[in-house]
């Protein structure tokens, strides 16, 4: 954190030691062109446009690190000439039919070509045939590609999948004659450009990744675009409506790009989702799951009156999901206060309880970390979360932190995840026993806890797990031996040091931690972790959904509170649904259901639904204004991309006597004692600043509470031997809403690993019957999921046709089942 001052174009700019000059310039609103650089990723040096003059020497600002007293000049005649030459080279053989290109209008190649004033071409060479490729939801048009490698970079450094790489173009080499006619940097760039093209890293025909589509977002030209969006609209016709990701709790900033449906139908339609790719990656569901709106033609007055009537007379319970805005949650809470309805939301209730127990030992009403913190730390632990599918953005942050900060990380989960394991070689993936989360919490406390600050009882308790044995091991030691060697020819004597290795027997003390075996990890895990911890100073811990409904959830929460207090970790307790955090803060949730239930987006005796079924249609989250409380403890606004012609929850509340004109009038009324601020909806910003600061909504305030150190001792939790299933959704699915989107729509299946199929001698597509002790039965197809390992398949809940609730009655995500193969019909 050494603050230094550098001078850019005569302007004194504050910077941190070692920061990239480009970042400093951008923060100070100084423009340096760059085609290949993506913020928060490593510089690729492909485009060379960010060429600057640093203390009289040419340097590339994207990888030049700031040093005290540096003098940077971003513009000079020489530099501009070079940049112009580079742009001219980029335009060689780039098709000029901008009219048919989807990027036209927001194309950086177009922009820079005009900006650099390229109005003529001095070069022409034969083009190589570069066929277009269809990679699932992504379309790659190689002839438009300028090989800036942004896609490769972002996939490696941000998403962590490294699914793309540059491959040989297969064309003729660049004629050396051009070298004399071209500027130096331009020629170097051209030489590289002429050789390569983007391809799939694994060599497969189609893209074998999670298809998050971030590569299409970062592509400066029209080479990578969404297949669905291709040729459907020009960029400038689309109106960007800023919103927040409605599918998961990262609530990333996204823009719904809206235009009229067709010539004959002026109703707006969402054509795609775009993002601020430099600052906020989007996962597949956010990017492709945009058209989940509930389309109704008119206000169904009859149904509305029925619902209001039943609310007045019969209903005593309101059940709902956490896919609602803070304002709607507040409306429900107000209704509860006024009419005494019971509010039922088991998932949010569990989270609320978890947070409460966490607070009891940590002394803070909210967890301390957020994804921004994770990204800046260099040791990240993920625990109790299938992070790739549960919260992809948390995974991206973890990958980004390990990759960019020379960091390391731990990933604890019972199901092996090859994608997460591949993030970095410094990521230790520990596939542990089902239910061992409590032991892991103790293990982390033991490993990282500040032994001086921790209460004595706890230290003593942790010590009981350690057994120290003496053990003799053989060790290779290198010894330096000094020798005097006489040079035969010159006769001089020289001292020569040679290294000799020899085997030494040594007796060492081995500290065996019983927790390791309880977790089910390999024995040398402690040593490996110790190695990873070298030079690490900033720690983050992400906790996921698995523990909220864990039978030992209360104790795990308390342990996490202690970890918060006694270890350097910043903890993120990932909310399991979009607005679980908001709901758990706003609503007083009840345990017991009443007799007559009104279900909001969930089953009830009377159902309000945004999914297109139910007694009264409700607006989906892309049709509503309101705020979400994100994983980053931020209250972020979202806007209505599409109109909704039916009734809003606010209309029902008004019919019941709450007098508020708009739903967003509730925004300033959110409970201040829980950390919300009395800010009007229209005053909430929703953007990223030039320096990458997330200027969206406001941060919740964390209250300091009194805390205690009471935790229960570890209780072994054993699972029944036999088949297990895990409640999880595939990587681009989160709920029935994502499944409603036309690009994501699919039928649910039992997702199994290749190992599982081999072990059980089954094929993808086979039908199996799942049965549990309580007698619930489910016939379901198998589907091979290449992106998991191990023997635990997962069962999704996004498909409303598959009812999985009987298997997960308590909410715990692991369930024992008996699996019977059914002959394939």
């Amino acid at each position, binding site marked *: 954190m050494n603050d230094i001052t550098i001078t850019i174009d005569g302007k004194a700019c504050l910077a941190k030691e070692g920061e990239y000059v480009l970042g400093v310039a951008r923060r100070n609103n100084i423009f340096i062109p760059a085609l290949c650089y993506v913020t928060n990723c490593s510089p690729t040096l492909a485009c060379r446009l960010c060429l600057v003059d640093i203390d009289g020497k040419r340097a590339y600002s994207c990888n030049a690190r700031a040093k005290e007293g540096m003098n940077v000049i971003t513009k000079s005649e020489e530099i501009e000439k070079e940049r112009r030459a580079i742009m001219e080279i980029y335009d*060689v053989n780039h098709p000029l039919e901008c009219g048919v290109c989807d990027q036209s209008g927001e194309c950086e190649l177009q922009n820079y070509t005009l900006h650099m004033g390229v109005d003529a071409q001095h070069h022409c*060479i034969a083009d190589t045939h570069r066929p277009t490729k269809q990679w699932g939801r992504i379309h790659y048009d190689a002839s438009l590609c300028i090989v800036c490698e942004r896609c490769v970079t972002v996939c490696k450094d941000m998403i962590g999948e490294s699914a793309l790489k540059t491959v040989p173009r297969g064309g003729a080499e660049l004629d050396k004659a051009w070298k004399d006619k071209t500027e130096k940097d331009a020629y170097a760039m051209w030489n590289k450009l002429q050789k390569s093209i983007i391809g799939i890293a694994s060599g497969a025909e189609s893209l074998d990744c999670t298809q998050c589509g971030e590569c299409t977002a970062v592509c400066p030209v029209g080479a990578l675009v969404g297949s669905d969006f291709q040729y*459907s609209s020009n960029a400038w016709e689309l109106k960007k409506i800023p919103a927040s990701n409605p599918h998961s709790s990262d609530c990333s900033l996204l823009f719904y790009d809206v235009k*009229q449906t067709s010539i004959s139908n002026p109703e707006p339609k969402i054509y795609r989702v775009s993002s601020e790719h430099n600052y906020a990656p989007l996962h597949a569901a956010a990017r492709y799951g945009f058209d989940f709106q509930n389309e109704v033609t008119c206000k169904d007055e009859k149904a509305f009156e029925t619902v209001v009537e039943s609310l007045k007379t019969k209903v005593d319970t309101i059940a709902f999901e956490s896919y609602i805005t803070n304002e709607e949650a507040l409306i429900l809470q107000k209704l509860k206060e006024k009419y005494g309805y019971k509010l039922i939301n088991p998932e949010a209730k569990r989270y609320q309880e978890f947070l409460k127990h966490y607070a009891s030992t940590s002394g803070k009403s909210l967890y301390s970390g957020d994804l921004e913190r994770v990204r800046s730390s260099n040791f990240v632990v993920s625990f109790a979360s299938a992070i790739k599918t549960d919260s992809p953005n948390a995974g991206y942050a973890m990958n980004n932190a390990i990759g960019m900060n020379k960091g390391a990380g731990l990933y604890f989960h019972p199901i092996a995840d090859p994608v997460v394991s591949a993030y970095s070689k410094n990521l230790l993936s520990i596939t542990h026993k089902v239910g061992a989360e409590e032991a892991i919490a103790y293990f982390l406390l033991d490993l990282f806890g500040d032994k001086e600050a921790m209460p004595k009882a706890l230290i003593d308790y942790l010590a009981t797990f350690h057994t120290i044995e003496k053990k003799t091991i053989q060790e290779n030691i290198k010894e330096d031996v000094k020798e005097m060697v006489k040079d035969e020819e010159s006769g001089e004597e020289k001292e020569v040091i040679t290294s000799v290795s020899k085997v030494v027997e040594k007796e060492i003390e081995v500290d065996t931690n019983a927790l390791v075996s309880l977790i089910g990890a390999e024995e040398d895990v402690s040593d490996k972790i110790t190695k990873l911890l070298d030079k690490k100073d900033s720690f983050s811990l992400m906790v996921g959904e698995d523990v909220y409904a864990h039978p030992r959830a209360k104790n795990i929460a308390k342990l996490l509170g202690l970890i918060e207090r006694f270890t350097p970790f910043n903890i993120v307790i990932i909310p399991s649904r979009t607005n679980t955090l908001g709901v758990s803060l706003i609503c007083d949730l009840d345990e017991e259901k009443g007799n007559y239930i009104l279900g909001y987006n969930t089953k009830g005796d009377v159902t309000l639904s945004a999914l297109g079924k139910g007694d009264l249609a409700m607006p989906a989250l892309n049709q509503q204004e309101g705020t979400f409380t994100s994983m980053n403890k931020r209250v972020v606004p979202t806007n209505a991309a599409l109109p909704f012609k039916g009734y809003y929850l606010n209309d029902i509340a008004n019919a019941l006597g709450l007098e508020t004109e708009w739903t967003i009038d509730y925004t300033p009324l959110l409970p201040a004692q829980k950390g919300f601020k009395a800010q009007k909806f229209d005053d909430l910003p929703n953007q990223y600043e030039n320096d990458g600061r997330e200027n969206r909504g406001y941060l919740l305030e964390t209250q300091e509470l009194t805390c205690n150190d009471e935790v229960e001792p570890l209780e072994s939790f054993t699972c029944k031997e036999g088949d297990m299933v895990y409640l999880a959704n595939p990587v681009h699915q989160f709920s029935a809403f994502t499944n409603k989107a036309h690009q994501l729509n699919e039928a649910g299946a039992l997702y199994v690993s290749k190992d599982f199929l081999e072990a059980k001698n089954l094929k993808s597509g086979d039908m199996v019957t799942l049965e549990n002790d309580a007698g619930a039965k489910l016939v379901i197809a198998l589907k091979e999921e290449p992106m998991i390992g191990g023997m635990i398949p997962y069962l999704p809940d996004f498909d409303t046709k598959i009812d999985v609730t009987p298997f997960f009655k308590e909410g715990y995500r692991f369930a024992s089942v008996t699996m019977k193969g059914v002959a394939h019909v």
Partner: protein
Amino acid sequence: MTLNDFKKRDCSGDYIFFEGEKKSENGWEAFQRVMKRTLKGELFVGLWVVLREMIRFDIHTLKYPAEKMEMGPRYRAIHRLLRLFESGSERCIGCGLCEKICIAKCIRMETRIDEKSRKEVSEYSINFGRCIFCGYCAEVCPELAIVHGVEYENASEQRAHFGLKEDMLTPLDTFRAKEQKEFSGFGALSDHADETVKQTPLAY
């Protein structure tokens, strides 16, 4: 009028600078002016001019429904969508520039990807209730696909007439009969276009 005539932009010869009469400062001057105007006989010049024209009987009336006026190439009437002479397929590539530049915001188009994975314009409409026939769309069109025709009889039974793609696109039978004419008016390439265009990146 040929294209070369258009290129001569110097109109100075045709304009006469007219200096207005001095304003009368008092009643006497105003009276003088009236008398001058009255007695100068300018009024009778006017009378003579119209009488002369009547006697000459040089009639310029066009008996409209029977005779129709030959429109100049720069006349901007109902738009036409042209076809490629080589293949007969539509010239429009769906770039949307006309839609963007239209100051009356009356052009709308729908594009999609066709079987040959090219951009295809599935629907194209101009709201002629709004169109001000400024000609920007024809001028901006890179393919000379949308042009102004000379069809100036715009009365129809329905509002939507003329405004859809099938109304504007050269019908295939007209095209096959080689009756589609290359557009020579607003936005068309000038005769010496080749001299002014710089070498493009695709010159190879």
